[in-house]
């Protein structure tokens, strides 16, 4: 079976999600590498997650599908842009968040900020799923992209440490 990052790359490709804007994250490194090495994608780093959401929203309106890659602390900067741009303008901004703050977190700040993520998503009615098993990865990504596009609403995929191994404190 393919690795989680290969499954995600291939599923995005199948759905023509061509634009990838990211703020780097250690756990996402293999996915970012797989995407940047593939000419199908236009991928680049942004200085801030909110900026990436704006770019992906603009690209959607211009006819290109895109996704924002980030970690949990980056997601915490997004409530304003989601509630004032993506949701009310009905723009299916796709988000992929590498989950920190749980299952072995070593930084209390990360643990606290992570607790804000799902309540924010629920409060603005943004569809979200946590991917924790390799055998469910393709199904969740595939169906979430379909639903986002069909309903013109953003969607957030959360990569659990159960899937990725997460980030652990170097001994």
């Amino acid at each position, binding site marked *: 079976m393919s690795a989680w990052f290969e499954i995600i790359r291939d599923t995005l490709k199948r759905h023509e999600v061509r634009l990838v804007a990211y703020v780097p994250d250690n756990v996402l490194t293999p996915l970012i590498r797989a995407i940047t090495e593939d000419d199908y994608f236009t991928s*680049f780093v942004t200085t801030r997650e*909110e900026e990436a959401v704006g770019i992906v929203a603009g690209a959607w309106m211009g006819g290109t599908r895109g996704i924002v890659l980030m970690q949990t602390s980056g997601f915490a900067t997004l409530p*304003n842009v989601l509630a004032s741009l993506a949701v009310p303008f009905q723009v299916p901004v796709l988000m992929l968040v590498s989950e920190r703050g749980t299952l072995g977190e070593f930084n209390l700040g990360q643990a606290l900020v992570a607790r804000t993520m799902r309540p924010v998503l629920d409060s603005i009615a943004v569809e979200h799923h946590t991917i924790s098993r390799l055998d469910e990865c393709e199904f969740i990504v595939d169906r979430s992209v379909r639903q986002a596009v069909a309903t013109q609403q953003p969607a957030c995929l959360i990569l659990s440490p159960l899937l990725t191994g997460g980030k652990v404190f170097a001994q």
Partner: protein
Amino acid sequence: MSGFSNRPLARAEAKVMGRLDLTKRLVALLRHEEAVVGGIGNTNFDLWAAGRRPQNFYMLGSMGLAVPIAMGVALAQPQRRVVALEGDGSILMQLGCLATAANLKQGNLLIVVMDNGSYQITGGQATATGLGADIVAIARGAGLAQSAWAADEAHFEEMVGQALAEPGPWLIGVRIDMQKPVIQTERDPAQIRDRFMRGLGVKPAWG
């Protein structure tokens, strides 16, 4: 890049002009269904007042994101020129996007920053540009080499004409006065987005 390089004006040397007048001049120079993304507040209201176009996107909220949205449109449609209209308070919130714009080297992107040194819509408090920051210098430092202040109205029109014809990215700084907006944008986000997508040819024409 004559209009951008031969007048090394500092902010203080640029003429203070009328915001709506400049917006109308900009829109009058659009001949090829260029996309225009209006930031929040007065830049947005003036874009609305200058005449509704299907290629205009009127942002409501998400302060600071007119440039990123314009960058996304420009990435998706490299054959179309895309203009971002921002205020000084807005661009100060998202300065990092100037570095991203420089890195992406988008030939079809024009950023216009309307600077009155003031958070006019919230009561006229001074912004950092009113206290000494120079957006054109910041943009150049971020890597947007083709950035300059407009000396006056004629210079602004010359610069816009050049930016719509030659490879960008471009940034034009304009100093503006404190006039009140004459009208406000209709706040109907889904309709704004739908019309914009049809205006860009992403969805078929209505009817």
